[in-house]
């Protein structure tokens, strides 16, 4: 390989070659198409998990009417962006404002809106979080990296019944003109549980 030959690709590893072999043979046998495989990957990387919630947040940030629908009838609003599979429970989205910061817990077990946020993290199900966030939310949030100013009300929602909650975080400054996709990319699961807020990356991703 010459020094100037920057476009010459490396051969695939053993296992990459094995995966390629299987896929190409299965395509030749007519058992699947690469496009079908692409679609599954896309669905699992983008659809299932917190990206569902994040997409709703991004849409609410750019569309005030959608935001109102999200806050008053979350299931219908999620349906509008193509998310129709829900468990039977009610879903309520609660909005962070300059005066209010919301955080979600289930002190009695660990109920969680997993259809729109994916599966819950261990810390959410843990005794320290369940016991402390109702009584000392500000210390818990601070430990997790979020300081809430004294003049802001912290509202803790204890999901003790069949209603599931998700937080609609505030849109951060420095995001003017961003596409919905880009906005959704800064909305993490932790923002929608209420233990973090969306952060604009300091350095643009190349």
């Amino acid at each position, binding site marked *: 390989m010459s020094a100037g030959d920057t476009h010459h690709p490396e051969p695939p590893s053993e296992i990459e070659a094995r995966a390629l072999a299987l896929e190409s043979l299965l395509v030749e046998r007519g058992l699947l198409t690469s496009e079908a495989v692409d679609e599954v990957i896309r669905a699992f990387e983008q659809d299932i998990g917190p990206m569902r919630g994040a997409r709703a947040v991004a849409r609410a940030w750019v569309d005030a009417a959608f935001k109102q629908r999200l806050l008053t009838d979350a299931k219908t609003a999620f349906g509008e962006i193509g998310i129709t599979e829900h468990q039977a429970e009610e879903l309520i989205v609660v909005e962070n404002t300059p005066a209010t910061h919301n955080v979600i*817990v289930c*002190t*009695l077990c660990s109920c969680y809106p997993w259809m729109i946020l994916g*599966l819950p993290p261990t810390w959410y199900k843990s005794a*320290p979080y369940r016991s402390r966030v109702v009584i000392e939310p500000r210390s818990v949030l601070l430990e997790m990296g979020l300081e809430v100013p004294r003049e802001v009300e912290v*509202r803790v*929602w*204890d999901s003790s019944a069949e209603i599931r909650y998700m937080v609609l975080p505030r849109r951060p400054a420095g995001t003017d003109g961003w596409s919905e996709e880009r906005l959704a990319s800064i909305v993490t699961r932790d923002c929608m549980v209420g233990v973090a807020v969306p952060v604009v990356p300091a350095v643009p991703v190349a």
Partner: protein
Amino acid sequence: MSGVHDMGGTPGHGPVVVEAAEPVYHARWEGRVHGMMRRLLMRRVFNLDQFRRAVELIPPARYLASTYYERWLSALETLVRAPGRSAIPRAEHSADAAFRVGDRVLTRASETVGHTRLPRYARGKRGVIESVHGPYRLPDTNAHLVSIDWEPVYTVAFEARELWGSQAAPRDSVRIDLWQSYLERSRR
């Protein structure tokens, strides 16, 4: 019941530990337990309230020392040994809504022996009805297959200082979703 599961506001559990890039299941068997629980639930071998109750029955020391899925496994073992009759019809009742948004309410102060979804930290406390939901089956009777009682569920807002005293930040609040049976009208 005041099992150790009812842990809102209880001290001594230490800091919240956040695992970086944690897997959903720490071991393969955890996924099997999750799958088993969901399949048995779908086949109505037990209902969700019975399942939660079975988790709550784990002796306190073992409950606290167990991981989340270890508790699920214990609950499944309990339920399989004492098969439920959740498919058998029971007397069914429906309660009309007794409260409206803005009503001041007082939560039940007494302890229950059986399953309940009124957290201990919110017993005998005053709050305000913020919204009305349901009706939903009252877990207190559904977990024990006594009867099916459909009741409204209310989101009740409590001032943090009402729950925790003056140590709490003055502006903060806690909202809890409570079945109608847990509430009575407050005189103040």
